[in-house]
Every structure is written in structure tokens, then in C-alpha cells.
């Protein structure tokens, strides 16, 4: 007897001792509406970064936790994130029901909210502002949504400085570095599951750069089960959107799947010719082999067609009477036909394999393939006057400058009355002109048929992007964590132009019209495809669907290996990481250009770059409420493909002085969290060195088409960010944020300007723009707002935003010595070099929403947001200086004056109404 008692006692003591290591937390997550179980809720326990997912019945368990005080954070789409402090003892603490409250539906942020830039220098889409991801950081959360109306860039960084991952693969564009939101544009519900880091923090999937990271997780097992459908009516980007998403949740047989379909259609109330005809599809399937191994396949795509807007000069806007005039379209067949239409379908297929060797070790392997095509149409013409309606010669200012006030007055009358549709393209005239073409000289070369003088071409960048990533993480018993990864990328993009619509003609003669003008007597010189010319005796008569003008591959191969280690020393949390890699790029011309027969077809020089990063994150936790952080980064990255070649459409010549770009960044923050009050104050400084940029444009000084290659561009960004989200009373919360920065160019870059036709150097020198401002983001942005949520799920918000210090994108040409003529005084020189500051703007936005719970299972809701309530239609959101110059030859010395700049304006009052249904 005694022995048995002793044995039991011994056993219980031993068990107790053992359980000293097995404290934990468990509970059941439910929704406040009807206590319905919430599955797929991500629960994060800090310190320690343990994570768990709630099961289909809402249950969760985190065990093997050292006793202590922790914070448990519950996050899932459509519900307000919840943080609960919990104390863990030697046993598993049962929290019972954890109640989450449904969140208000926010206006969808997708790339459609940004007006298209249509820069004449020939480069394609502008980058998107950085803030398109949802973030739990109090400042980024406010900045992302509230400041997006002004194309705000966090800390002034272009989108290439924000890393966007999907399931562990970094998907920023291989050639430009831009964020790839357009790949899943319209699939907001399917891509809602995001892990974000801000600024210089190291993430779980990679070290990141200066602009934070976003990792979108599309694994269906992590998507909450149910159907979500929504219907949107709006007037600012598209007229309506329908979206439906279904996720099966984690099923008992180990399978889970999800799919989503959406469409966005229609135009807007402000700019004519801009429209959306876009679809999105998404399907993901996952199989859990056992608790340890999972395999998932994701397929998504966003086939889109949309009409683009072109900025115009203030003169044109004033003549038309509003700031939304779009010169890109004209009437045809009773409809508005836009010359610049984006048409793309770039599906993405991804395979993920995750192996959890233990609760503490995970290996994740991912492979993705992106393919498809991406075209951007444009009107092109062989000869004749420029058909664009707002060409400078058709505006009154041209007549004024010419000393013809009567002509100017007449033009003004025509524009104001839109006499004979002077404001728009005349498609009919282009067709009629094409119908007329039957010159025997053309027939002798190209055969019978009408030779089009006008046509719509589509400039393509068709990518084949293959990625592979391996991620390994291990959580040590002492709480420290090791993350390591390997990423490999191989991209081949075909750049070419395609004949899209011959506008009534039968073929387009594929010759270089500028070379024909200059070298008419040698037909070889003006061939775009010299091998074709030698084989057939004449240039190609390109028909609809044929490639023409140029055809080359951009090849990029990149690889990197990284490591990060996170550990704590008392109250100090340290994460240190390093990465090393390479980038290899080259151009492969597919056609031999007549002007450069020896330097166009075949491979260019193979460019090799070394890349590396070193990052350190320090966080000192005074208490759960007060945390101070300091971060530092030094990195070297490869230049992007576009700036590596002087004129990639014509030849293999590499940009002179091309170097790796180097970035140094440091920031420090103070974070405050008192219950539901959150605040952050940060200071940052970043230097970017040795960027390169290439422009191609018609130079009025040299009277020829040129390539302008800049190197040694340096930038300095520093500033302060402050944000506050404070509950005031009952359901009322105050939010406020300020971003104040100074983002300037920190050097006078070197440039080399070559004649596009001959590669002869026209001029060299410096671009004098040191201390001028980085463009296209307000350097001061401030928000103050109120948000209210009632017990019955009524949401109201009101926001007042203020912006200032936004600068126009500069044309480097105006800041060189080439435009300086001998009569100019220093004041004249300063005048031609000055940069335009847009001035301040004040915007008021509001929203209202409500949702109802039906039969404890379904949610029906709506939200309506109204932006720019004050209907201010004079707020510039962007723009650029033109590259052309007015040449004054009347005076004794030829002098130059810049052309008028072109601007984009914010829309007046717009609304966005979303009706949604979920279960």
C-alpha cells in the first residue's frame, strides 16, 4: 500500500515537474454575431512569436510555453483584430470563448485607383505608390488607405522599394522592380490574407528592403470557410464590380480549396475614355498529407482591358473648362474610342510545399511561373501632321508665340466650343486617309493593298518568369528564431510591338521613318529587320497581329541566399540578418536593325552584379506598453533592366557608368500601446546612391531623336512619421497621422546623350538638380479623423487630410548646360531650372456602413464612402515636365523655353458603395 501511494506521489511530482514546461493557452474563437465559430483565425503569441490557427470549430491551442505574461493577437479578415493579455502558468490556460467583432468593409484598394501615366518619353507604366497593402502598424494602416488619393509614397519611396511576396516568393517585377499588384488586381478577397512588416523590419519570408514587406498567403487552409459575395457601385474608377469567393476551410479529409471570380466594368464620372473591362479568377487547392506535410497549388489571373488617361497641359484644361480632359480618344461608330488601351492577361501558377518537421521547424518550398501577355496600345503614324488633338501647334498659345493673336483667338473659340470635335482624335479622317493609299511605288515594294499611314500598335512586354524559393525557420527552445532562405529567379521577357488595328488599311510597311528621312538613299539603313529585307528585297508588309518595329528579349537571372536570427537579451529583442546574391542581365536582339547591323541582333554583353544586404532590428521593451525600436540597413542592389541599356529597342549598347545601387537606411521609433490606444513616432533617414535612368525623346536643341542616359543619381530621404489611434468614448475612435519628410536629389548626375539614329554622342555633362525634390508624392501628409462603431454594427467615419510639398517630375534636359544660351542671366538660368511645387490641398472624406447578422450564420452589409466631399477639382496629384523646348530663333542668339508641363488632377466628389454578403 505504502509503495503504491509512494509511487503515485512520485508520479504526480514527476508529472508536475514535467508540466512545468507545458504551460499553454487554449480557447475557442467566435464571432460576436451569434457566437458562430470562426475558423482560420491566426493567433500570434508574443513574445516568442508562436502562431496557431483556429480549427473549424474555432478551437485553438498553444502549448509548450514557458510561464509568463504574453499578448495574444487574433487576426482574420473581416473582423477587427483583437489583442488580449494572458498569463501562462504551469497549466494550459483555458480562455473559453474569444469574441471577435466584425469589421467594417473598407473600400477596395487595387491598382485601379491610380490614374494612368502616359509619359511621352516612351517608358511604360509608372510605378504605383507603396501603400496598397493592409497593415497592422498604426501609421501604415492610416497612410495606406487615407493617403492613397494623393499617390502617397511612404517615406517617399517608389514602389520598387516595397517587397511584395506571395506564399514566400518575391514577385516584384523582374525588369522594373515595381510591385506586382496588377497580377491579382480585382481579387481582393482571395488575397486578403497578408503578413506585413513596415519600414526596415525583417520579415519571416525575407529581409526586405526599406519599404517594408507584404506576404500574401493564398493557402486555402488558412482562409476562413464560407462564401463572400459583393457588389460594388462606384463612379471613380469603374461603375460596378461583382466578386464572389468561396473557401472550404480545413476539411477533415485534409483537402481544402478556395476559388474566387470577379469583374470590374465601366468608366467613371470624370474622365472620358477611361474604362475597365476586367476579370479576375483564382483557384487554390491544398492537401494536408498529415499534420506535417502540405502541398498547395494556386492559379490566378486578372485578364484586363482598360482605357488610359493622358495628362494634358493647363492650357488645354482651361480651354475645355475642366481638369479631366483626356486627349487620348475620339468618336468612332458613335462610341468613344481610346487610342491607349492596356490589354493584359498574365496568369500566375504557384506550387507550395510545407513541411513541419516539428512544432518548431518548418521548411517551405515554393515555385511559381508567371506567363501571358501584356500590351499597351498607341496610335502611330508614318507621315503627316501629328494627329493628337492637344499637340502644341493646335493650341492658341502656339499662335500667340508666333505673333498671331487673331489665329490664337480663333483657336480659342474652336477649343471652347469643341468646334468639329477639335478636342478629340479624328478616327474617321485616319480611316479615309488609309483608304486612299494606292501609290504604285508602294505596290512595287510591298504588293497590292492599302499601305496604312495610321495604325494602332500594341507595345508588348510578355514575361516568362520562373521563381523558386526555399524558406527554413527554426524556433529554438530559448525562444530565439532562425530564418533562412534561398531565392532563384529566371525571367525572359519579350519586348515587341504588334500591329493591332490597321484602321482601314491592308498593311504597315515596317521601316524606321526617322532613318528613312535621314538615309533615304540606303534602304538597308532604315530597315527594322535587315535579315528579312535581304531575304525578300523589301521591308515586311506587316498585317494585323504581326510583330513590327522591334523584337528583343530581356534576360534576367537572379539568386540570393539570406539568413536572419532573432533573439532576446532581457528586454532587448534583436534581429540581425544578412543576404548575398547575384543578378545577371542581358539583352538578346531577335532582329537585326539596319542602323546598327553589328550591334543589334544576338546577345549583348552579359552584365553581372553582386547584391548584398545587412540589416539589424533592435527593440527595447520597457513594458508591454512602451517599446523603442531602432533599425539599420545597408544594401547593394542591381540596377533595373530598363536603365541598363541606352536604347534597347534598337541596339545592345549598355548605359555608360552603370553600377549597382547602394542604399543606407536607419530609423528609430517609439511605439505606445495602452489597451486599444496605439501610437507611434518615428524618425528615418535613407540615402540612395548610384541610380541610373535612361530617357528617349526628340531633342529640340540637337533636332534629332536622342537617348539620354544618366548615372550617379543620388537621393536623400529623411523625415518623421507620427500616428495615433485612440478610443475616445464608447465606440468612437480618433485617428491621426502625420508624415513630414524631405526627399531630395543629393547629387548632380552625369549624363551622356546620344543620337538614336547613329549612336553618336551629342553631348555630355551634368544634370544640375541637386537639392531639388523627389517627385510625385506629397512630402507632407496629415490626417485627422473620427471613426465610430456602434453596438449594432453601424460604422461611421470622417477624415480630414492635408497635403503639401508635392513636386512636379522634372525633365533632366532643362537642367543641363545645353539649354543655356549666352544671353541668359543667372536669374534666367534659375528660372529655367526651377521645380514646380503643387501647393497645399485639403480633402474631406466620409463613410458609413452597417452589417446585419441573419439567422446567426449569415452577414449582410453595406458600406458607402464618399471622397472629396468638398468637391475640390483643382488638386494636382501628379504630372511631369515635357522634354520638348520652344526654340526662339528670332532673337540674335537662339534661346530655349520649356514647353508647358502636363498634370493630373484628383477627381471631385466620388462615391463607392459596397453591398456584401457572407457566411
Amino acid at each position: 500500500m505504502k509503495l503504491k501511494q509512494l509511487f503515485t506521489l512520485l508520479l504526480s511530482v514527476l508529472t508536475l515537474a514535467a508540466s512545468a514546461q507545458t504551460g499553454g493557452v487554449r480557447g475557442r474563437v467566435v464571432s460576436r454575431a451569434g457566437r458562430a465559430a470562426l475558423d482560420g483565425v491566426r493567433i500570434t503569441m508574443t513574445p516568442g512569436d508562436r502562431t496557431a490557427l483556429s480549427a473549424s470549430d474555432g478551437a485553438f491551442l498553444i502549448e509548450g510555453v514557458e510561464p509568463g505574461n504574453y499578448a495574444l493577437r487574433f487576426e482574420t479578415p473581416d473582423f477587427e483584430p483583437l489583442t488580449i493579455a494572458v498569463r501562462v502558468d504551469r497549466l494550459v490556460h483555458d480562455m473559453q470563448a474569444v469574441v471577435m467583432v466584425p469589421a467594417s468593409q473598407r473600400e477596395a484598394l487595387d491598382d485601379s485607383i491610380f490614374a494612368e501615366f502616359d509619359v511621352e518619353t516612351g517608358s511604360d507604366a509608372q510605378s504605383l505608390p507603396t501603400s496598397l497593402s493592409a497593415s497592422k502598424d498604426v501609421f501604415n494602416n492610416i497612410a495606406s488607405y487615407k493617403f492613397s488619393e494623393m499617390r502617397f509614397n511612404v517615406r517617399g519611396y517608389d514602389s520598387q522599394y516595397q517587397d511584395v511576396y506571395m506564399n514566400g516568393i518575391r514577385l516584384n517585377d523582374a525588369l522594373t522592380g515595381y510591385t506586382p499588384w496588377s497580377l491579382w488586381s480585382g481579387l481582393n478577397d482571395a488575397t486578403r490574407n497578408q503578413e506585413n512588416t513596415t519600414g526596415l523590419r525583417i520579415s519571416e519570408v525575407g529581409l526586405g528592403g526599406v519599404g517594408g514587406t507584404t506576404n500574401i498567403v493564398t493557402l486555402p487552409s488558412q482562409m476562413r470557410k464560407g462564401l463572400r459575395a459583393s457588389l460594388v457601385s462606384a463612379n471613380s474608377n469603374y461603375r460596378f464590380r461583382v466578386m464572389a469567393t468561396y473557401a472550404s476551410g480545413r476539411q477533415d479529409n485534409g483537402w481544402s480549396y478556395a476559388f474566387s471570380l470577379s469583374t470590374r466594368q465601366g468608366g467613371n464620372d470624370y474622365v472620358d475614355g477611361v474604362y475597365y473591362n476586367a476579370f479576375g479568377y483564382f483557384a487554390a487547392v491544398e492537401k494536408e498529407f498529415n499534420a506535417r506535410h502540405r502541398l498547395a497549388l494556386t492559379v490566378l489571373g486578372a485578364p484586363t482591358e482598360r482605357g488610359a488617361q493622358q495628362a494634358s497641359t493647363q492650357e488645354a484644361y482651361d480651354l475645355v473648362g475642366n481638369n479631366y480632359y483626356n486627349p487620348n480618344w475620339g468618336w468612332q461608330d458613335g462610341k468613344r474610342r481610346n487610342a491607349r488601351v492596356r490589354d493584359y492577361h498574365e496568369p500566375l501558377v504557384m506550387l507550395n510545399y510545407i513541411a513541419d518537421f516539428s512544432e518548431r521547424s518548418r521548411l517551405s518550398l515554393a515555385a511559381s511561373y508567371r506567363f501571358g501577355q501584356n500590351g499597351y496600345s498607341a496610335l502611330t503614324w508614318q507621315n503627316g501632321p501629328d494627329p493628337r488633338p492637344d499637340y502644341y501647334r493646335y493650341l492658341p498659345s502656339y499662335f500667340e508665340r508666333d505673333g498671331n493673336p487673331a489665329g490664337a483667338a480663333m483657336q480659342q473659340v474652336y477649343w471652347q466650343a469643341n468646334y468639329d470635335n477639335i478636342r478629340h482624335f479624328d478616327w474617321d479622317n485616319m480611316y479615309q486617309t488609309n483608304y486612299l493609299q494606292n501609290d504604285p511605288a508602294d505596290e512595287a515594294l510591298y504588293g497590292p493593298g492599302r499601305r496604312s499611314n495610321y495604325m494602332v500598335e500594341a507595345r508588348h512586354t510578355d514575361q516568362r518568369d520562373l521563381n523558386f524559393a526555399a524558406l527554413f525557420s527554426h524556433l529554438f527552445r530559448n525562444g530565439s528564431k532562425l530564418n533562412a532562405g534561398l531565392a532563384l529567379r529566371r525571367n525572359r521577357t519579350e519586348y515587341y510591338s504588334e500591329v493591332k488595328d490597321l484602321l482601314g488599311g491592308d498593311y504597315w510597311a515596317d521601316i524606321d521613318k526617322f532613318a528613312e528621312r535621314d538615309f533615304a538613299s540606303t534602304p538597308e539603313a532604315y530597315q527594322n529587320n535587315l535579315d528579312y529585307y535581304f531575304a525578300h528585297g523589301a521591308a515586311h508588309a506587316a498585317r494585323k497581329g504581326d510583330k513590327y518595329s522591334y523584337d528583343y528579349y530581356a534576360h534576367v537571372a537572379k539568386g540570393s541566399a539570406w539568413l536572419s536570427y532573432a533573439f532576446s537579451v532581457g528586454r532587448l529583442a534583436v534581429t540581425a540578418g544578412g543576404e548575398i546574391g547575384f543578378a545577371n542581365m542581358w539583352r538578346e536582339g531577335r532582329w537585326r536593325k539596319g542602323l546598327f547591323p553589328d550591334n543589334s541582333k544576338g546577345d549583348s554583353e552579359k552584365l553581372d552584379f553582386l547584391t548584398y544586404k545587412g540589416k539589424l532590428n533592435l527593440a527595447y521593451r520597457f513594458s508591454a506598453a512602451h517599446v523603442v525600436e531602432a533599425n539599420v540597413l545597408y544594401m547593394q542592389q542591381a540596377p533595373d533592366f530598363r536603365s541598363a541599356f541606352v536604347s534597347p529597342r534598337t541596339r545592345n549598347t549598355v548605359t555608360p557608368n552603370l553600377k549597382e545601387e547602394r542604399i543606407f537606411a536607419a530609423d528609430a521609433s517609439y511605439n505606445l500601446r495602452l489597451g486599444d490606444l496605439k501610437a507611434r513616432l518615428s524618425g528615418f533617414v535613407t540615402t540612395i546612391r548610384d541610380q541610373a535612368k535612361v530617357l528617349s525623346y526628340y531633342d529640340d536643341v540637337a533636332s534629332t531623336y536622342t537617348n539620354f542616359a544618366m548615372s550617379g543619381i543620388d537621393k536623400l530621404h529623411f523625415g518623421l512619421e507620427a500616428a495615433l489611434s485612440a478610443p475616445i468614448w464608447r465606440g468612437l475612435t480618433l485617428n491621426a497621422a502625420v508624415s513630414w519628410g524631405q526627399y531630395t536629389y543629393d547629387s548632380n548626375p552625369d549624363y551622356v546623350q546620344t543620337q538614336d539614329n547613329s549612336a553618336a554622342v551629342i553631348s555630355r555633362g551634368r544634370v544640375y538638380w541637386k537639392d531639388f525634390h523627389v517627385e510625385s508624392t506629397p512630402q507632407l501628409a496629415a490626417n485627422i479623423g473620427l471613426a465610430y462603431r456602434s453596438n449594432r454594427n453601424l460604422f461611421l467615419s470622417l477624415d480630414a487630410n492635408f497635403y503639401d510639398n508635392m513636386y512636379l517630375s522634372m525633365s533632366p534636359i532643362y537642367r543641363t548646360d545645353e539649354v543655356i544660351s549666352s544671353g541668359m542671366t543667372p536669374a534666367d538660368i534659375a528660372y529655367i531650372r526651377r521645380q514646380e511645387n503643387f501647393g497645399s490641398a485639403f480633402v474631406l472624406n466620409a463613410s458609413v456602413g452597417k452589417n446585419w447578422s441573419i439567422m446567426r450564420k449569415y452577414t449582410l452589409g453595406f458600406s458607402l464612402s464618399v471622397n472629396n466631399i468638398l468637391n475640390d477639382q483643382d488638386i494636382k496629384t501628379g504630372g511631369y515636365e515635357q522634354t520638348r523646348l520652344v526654340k526662339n530663333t528670332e532673337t540674335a542668339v537662339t534661346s530655349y523655353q520649356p514647353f508647358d508641363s502636363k498634370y493630373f488632377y484628383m477627381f471631385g466628389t466620388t462615391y463607392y458603395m459596397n453591398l456584401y454578403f457572407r457566411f
Partner: protein
Amino acid sequence: MTMKRIFQYLSATALALLFAGCYNDFDAPAEEAVYTDADLVSKGLTYISIRDLKEQFWSRTGAGAGSVASWAIDEPLYTRGKVISTDRYGSLYKSLYLYDESSESAIELKITTGNYLFYPAGRELFVELKGLVLGNYRGMVSIGAASANSSYSNDNLEVPMLVREHLHRGEELGMTAADTLVIDRTNYATLTDDALGRLVRFEGIESVHGKAKWGYQNNFPNYFANSTSYDRTSEGELNGVTWADFIGGTPTWAAWGSLNGAPTTTYFYGSAWFSYDKTNPGENTAAAPGNYVVRTSGYAQFRGAPIPADGATVDLTAIYTKYTNTSGRYITYQLVILDEDDVVLK
């Protein structure tokens, strides 16, 4: 909701979506109808022939050949002719010539670029004259728009919308032998200012390289740009370039190149002398009859083709124009070649 239901709803949505957007279907417009006199008359316009138009111009303005004179037409008139020129090869710039066979008279139209595309040679063209300006430039009358510069009597009609308001395409008539006036060694004395603007074929004419005895007594061939003229006798270096470097062995119709070591390109007009009677010193300052200067723009595609050698005999087809100084003296008859093939060696 069962899976089946869900699938049904989603497929229905998908189908609906497929038909949702058809933005790309634009019907091509029908070919426009050609204009006829009836169309112009129905607008209330009265026909005036090119000959009458030019005569009225001179009588209204009372101008001398060199003076800057304009007639801004505000009467409801129209004229018509056949397009006889092409600017495809770059020798004409923003200009076309219209020929009226019935009155055997031609006139220049000053419009914009690429006229061969819109108004090809052989096409009938109607011009609504009200609102346009007839002007004189050094002896040549042209139809254009009002000029703001007092040195010029008219300017180009450049705004595309206005061009289309005033110019209307008629039928395709095709070029015929009657469009070209044939001149040779026997009848060149009969060539008068009546033929200004017309296509003239000079048969059996001699190419002359050397110093002219008439007018400014220029050396031919010569090249002109930036207010300076260059020929083989130009002393020393031409802004850093010798004559030999500039034109090489064989003089060409026009020239294009870089001067001052600068990469900017300068386009030079070329002037070449063709004659039936090269020793004639002429009267006063005017060129002697039978002597003509082919003036070619540096932008012409055939600028690099050689001028026929000194003494060579050719058949040459060109637009016949006149050029005087501002006092109407130093009259030269200049020829504009439209296409390289218009010069045929005998």
C-alpha cells in the same frame, strides 16, 4: 448552401460576365463620298477658275512681283483643280500644286505636311476659298491662311480641322499627259508666267556647272543654309569644313551634314543650273530666257543623288516657279523636282 448551389451561382455569374464587356467593337466607317461641283454649289459657293483667281489677285492688290500682298477672301467662292505634285520625297514642304486643265493654270496651296497621303497626285481637289488668304511670295501666288508676320503675305493652313473644312477630295482623275507642259530647245521662249505652278517637262536641256552670266552671277551648283551660300569657289574652309569634304567628288542635288564639328545636322538647299542658252547674259537683272535653276531642299530623299555632270543633256520634269527679290528684280525661274526619276539622262 450546398456546393452544387454554389457552383451554379458562380457559373451563372461567370457566364454573365463573359458577355458583359464588348468595348472593342468599332465598325470601320464607310468610304467617304467624293465631292462634286454640285456639293459646293449647294453650299452657296460660286466657282472661280485658278486663272481667274490669280488674275483677280494681281488686279485687286495691284502688287508687284516682289511685294508682300494679300487678298483675304471673304466672298463665297470655290476653286478646283487636280493635284499634280507629291511631297512624298521631301522636296516640297507643306505645299501642294493644283492644276486646272480647263484654264491651263496652276496655283500653290500652303498647308501642312504629308500632303501625298491626303491629296495624292491625280486627285481632284475642291477648295472653299472663303476664309483663306491668297498671298504673293517673290512672284508666286499661293492659297494659305493669314500670316501674323508682316514679312509674309500668307502662312500655312496647319490646323487639321481647318484644312478639312476647306479642302475636299473629288474624284481620282489620274495623271495624264495633258497635265505636263512640254518645253524644248525650240519653244522655250513661249514659256510665260502663265505656266507658273505647272508641271513642265524640259526636254533636251543641258546641265551647266559654272558661273552664270545673269542675275547674281552665282556659281553653280551651290548650297545654302543659315544665310550663307557655298560653292566650289568658297574661299578657305566653310566653318571648318572644306568644299571637298563638304560635297565630295560629285555635287549632289542638296546636302545634309554636320558643320562646326557639332552633331546637330544642317540641311542645305542645293541649286543646280540647267540651260538651253547658257551664254545669254539676260536683260537687266533677270535670268536670260532658257535658263532655270533646280532648287532642291536638303530634306529631299534624293539629295544624295548626283547632279548630271557638266554638259550632260537630260529630260527634266519639275514644278515651274518664279523667285524675285523684294523689288521684283533678279528674276529667276526655279524648278522643283518631285522625284529622282523625274530627271532622265539622255
